[in-house]
């Protein structure tokens, strides 16, 4: 039988995995159920999601060093031709 009620520790683990899109659909359902009755985890989950939003916002405005390096190489190659 499928265990639908997660302990807090496991709920936090799923919540963290969820921030990186590594939680399965079933795990997310179980997390949602847990959040219905656990206020502490609900609060933690909201903070965690907010942190992801911040990090995405920060990341979304920058190119990585590797991407910049690739662009530089591409330009140099083109200039040599």
């Amino acid at each position, binding site marked *: 039988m499928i265990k639908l009620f997660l302990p807090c520790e496991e709920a*936090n*683990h799923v919540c*963290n*995995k969820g*921030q*990186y899109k*590594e939680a399965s659909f079933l795990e997310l359902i179980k997390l949602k159920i847990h959040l219905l009755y656990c206020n502490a985890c609900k609060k*933690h989950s909201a*903070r*965690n999601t*907010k*942190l992801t939003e*911040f*990090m995405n*916002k*920060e*990341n*979304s*405005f*920058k*190119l*990585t060093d590797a*991407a*910049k390096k*690739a*662009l*530089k190489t*591409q*330009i*140099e190659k*083109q*200039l040599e031709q």
Partner: protein
Amino acid sequence: MPTHVINPKSWVDRYSDYLYNYTITRVSNHEIAQDLISETFLAGLKSMKNFKGEASERTWLISILKRKIIDHYRKINSNKGKAEVRMNYNNEDDAEGDWMEERVADPFDKTAEDTIENSELGNAIQNCLKKLPEKQATIFEMKTILDYDTETICNELNITASNLWVIIHRARTAMASCLEKNWL
């Protein structure tokens, strides 16, 4: 009389973040944004001879990028069979970058506040990262900023997946409370 000169070797350092910033707010996809910037630079190199020096290099590159973004959406729409994009621009590849210099405005409107807010957020994140223990900061950065997958980090740092998630949990909790104090 031309007042601006063109220097492709400095494009990446000087404009890539700006172009990326401009693109990501319009296409909302990191990889597509990166591809469009790459195509923009290539188109810029091909049409360097058309640069008259009347607009700045950045304005000129943005004008090429704008066209690439329009092409991108035109391609998506035509794939879905519902394209209706009406353009009067000259479509000859050779003339790319020529008409644009005269017609495009520098897009100051969209990004000024975003850039300031983002640079402040960036500083807050960097300050909070510095407060984390070294291992936590490294793993958090690899996972969250560099977007490495779990397996790669585990192999590289010789840790187990469950160990990684414990560290991530601690780092995220510390980062969230640090940002609450220093940013919100």
